[in-house]
């Protein structure tokens, strides 16, 4: 009975080539995974933002119409003459009227800012900009959705 035992030896270059190739493939797999996760998370937030804008715009307008003239408008807060408030609180948009709070959770990576605009012959309007945040949580001033709500009873 003959015994055949063939051991294949690989040269150092072959081994290095295999190690290098495995390294490249693993890095590519990791890159694909990371990129997929990032894209998935980003677009989920975007979809929520688009949906939030449509919901919040209706609520904001009915809230502004129902509370009359404003007392103070700051980038993060709007106070009405009757004591009602719209404010940002830890990524939540809180509407307070008559001691009752209603809040909308904004998607991660978004923030809102308020401003008051006046045009001749029109009632003043509260403008809410839903801004995207960058990786350092700073507002991206060129990426926003603008929602206008006219103040009822304001001087035209």
């Amino acid at each position: 009975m003959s015994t055949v035992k063939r051991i294949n030896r690989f040269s150092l270059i072959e081994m290095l080539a295999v190690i290098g190739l495995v390294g490249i493939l693993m890095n590519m797999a990791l890159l694909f995974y990371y990129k997929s996760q990032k894209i998935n998370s980003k677009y989920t937030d975007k979809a929520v933002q688009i949906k939030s804008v449509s919901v919040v715009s209706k609520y904001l307008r009915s809230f502004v119409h129902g509370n009359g003239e404003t007392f103070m408008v700051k980038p993060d807060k709007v106070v009405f003459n009757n004591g009602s408030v719209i404010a940002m609180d830890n990524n939540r948009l809180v509407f307070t009227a008559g001691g009752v709070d209603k809040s909308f959770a904004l998607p991660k990576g978004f923030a809102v800012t308020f401003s008051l605009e006046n045009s001749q012959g029109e009632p003043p309007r509260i403008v809410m900009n839903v801004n995207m945040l960058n990786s350092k949580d700073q507002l991206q001033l060129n990426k926003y959705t603008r929602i206008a709500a006219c103040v009822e009873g304001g001087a035209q």
Partner: protein
Amino acid sequence: MKTEKQFQLRFYLMPEMIFALGLLMILTVCFFATTNTIQRMDKSFTDESCGLMVVDNTLERLEHKKQYNVEDVKRIFLDEYEKSGIKDRTKMLAGFTPNSVGAMLAIIKNNGKPLIEVQIKCQQ
């Protein structure tokens, strides 16, 4: 009876290697092409959402104005278009056409088709 272990070195032929690398390249290209498509779709959805808000905000402002004519509608619509920022970041255009009953507001997409058209009845 075979009791011995046989070790065999498998070699790959050049066509096999080329085929494997080609397949890997195709997969990579497909991945990045898909990513690119998703990004374009997302940008398009975001722009369309902003475009719709331009008309929505215009209607909100007109609704709270006691009376308005074609010039007022044009001024408010173009003001909203300007302030929405879509002028700077997209190729969407604002279309304003006065007609016999008032004016037609439209947001025109890159391909020349309207995203939204709204007929406003008002005084000339």
